């Protein structure tokens, strides 16, 4: 239960981190450490090199760019949860963070770490999916942008080459009047969700004009429910249409494991989609 031996590197700039990545084989990047450290302790991973990003300048911070919320990958979850910009511009992120681990882990854990680790039931990737977040990746060839839809490649595998680094995440603002909600069910507070749902709804003149629904925990990556979104647009928000959305969500592709069956996950997805939509709609029209 102790990490295997590795060589530790602590770059102070993104350029140095990229150069270190390019110069070494079998490297793990250390962000907040709330997933990697357990894996090191248990020797699930035994890398030759660990590159610690905690001392890298310019990788953390929260900014309102006018059309998006721009977040440095090394921004800690506690700082996001207490940020006034987040509360004002993307309150769903703050709501989701209240379910992420415990305050002691949020004091270290980072949003970029969570997006790169990509646990299927993690809250931050689910919100990123709902928001069509945009990610900035830096590698030896320079910078590239990735849409969140292109980010998960497989189970816990992000669209990130071994010599690349995630530096920034942007949540493009919805310009329409809208409401959003994050709901989840877990056995214990702070556990990964069995199912978590992020929903955003724009409502104008009593009609839904835009909808985004993402479900985490069901499949190996967060799923956007495109069929539900299409059905919602044009409809009047209300119990009947949200119940229909819930019924559609129950047909979601869902995993089964030793604790939770496919059927249970599907049923939970239905219930939580319905609840998230009702809450998002209520918030869209000024309620809670």
């Amino acid at each position, binding site marked *: *239960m102790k*990490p295997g031996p*590795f060589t530790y590197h602590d770059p102070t700039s993104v350029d140095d981190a990229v150069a270190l990545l390019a110069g070494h084989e079998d490297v793990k990047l250390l962000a907040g*450490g709330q997933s990697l450290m357990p894996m090191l302790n248990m020797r699930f991973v035994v890398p030759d090199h*660990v590159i610690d990003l905690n001392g890298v300048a310019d990788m953390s911070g929260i900014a309102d760019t006018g059309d998006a919320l721009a977040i440095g990958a090394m921004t800690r979850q506690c700082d996001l949860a207490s940020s006034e910009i987040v509360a004002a511009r993307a309150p769903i992120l703050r709501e989701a963070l209240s379910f992420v681990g415990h305050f002691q882990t949020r004091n*270290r854990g980072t949003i970029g770490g969570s997006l790169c680790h990509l646990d299927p039931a993690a809250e931050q990737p689910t919100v990123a999916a709902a928001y069509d977040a945009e990610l900035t990746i830096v590698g030896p060839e320079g910078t590239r942008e990735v849409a969140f839809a292109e980010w998960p490649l497989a189970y816990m595998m992000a669209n990130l080459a071994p010599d690349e680094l995630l530096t920034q995440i942007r949540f493009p603002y919805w310009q329409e009047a809208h409401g959003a909600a994050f709901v989840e069910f877990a056995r214990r*507070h702070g556990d990964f969700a069995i199912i978590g749902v992020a929903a955003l709804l724009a409502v104008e003149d009593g009609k839904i004009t835009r909808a985004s629904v993402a479900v985490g925990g069901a499949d190996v990556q967060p799923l956007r429910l495109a069929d539900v979104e299409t059905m919602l647009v044009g409809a009047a928000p209300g119990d009947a249409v949200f119940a229909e959305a819930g019924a559609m969500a129950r047909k979601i592709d869902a995993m089964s494991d030793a604790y939770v069956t496919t059927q249970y996950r599907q049923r939970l997805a239905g219930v939580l989609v319905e609840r998230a939509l009702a809450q998002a709609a209520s918030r869209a029209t000024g309620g809670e």
Partner: protein
Amino acid sequence: MADKREITVTINGQAQTAEVETRTNLADFLRHELELTGTHVGCEHGVCGACTVLVDGAAVRSCLMLAVQADGHEVTSVEGLAAADGTLHPVQEAFWKNHGLQCGFCTPGMVISVAAFLKDNPNPTEADVRSAISGNICRCTGYQGIVAAALEAAETMRQEG
């Protein structure tokens, strides 16, 4: 060859310099190098909370941090909570009065977590307290005494200002 670094960490107000293997976690550094065995190690993977310490005033799990990452930072372990003359911290006092511990294994992490939580939330409800200690596992008390202790400590700390 072992990868080593010399680090200087301010622990409970005192600067300590030591050479550590970079893979050593902060909990082991405190316990094995500095012989501060108040910090307990339960699970070593971030689940039990027994290893909680303050780093620059924020509660973190010391099994999920490398000692080398604490270089240049301030760490408070449970040994640093009481005053120099032995007067208990209000949280420690309240745990003692309210039977907030039995075997004591979870206690250092509980006490540190509650102290950190109350600093930011001086007037918590019982539900707030339960949520605050949800990352600390106790196998003995059933949590009742711990919750009572946290609420009493909150009141003491409010009165003391």
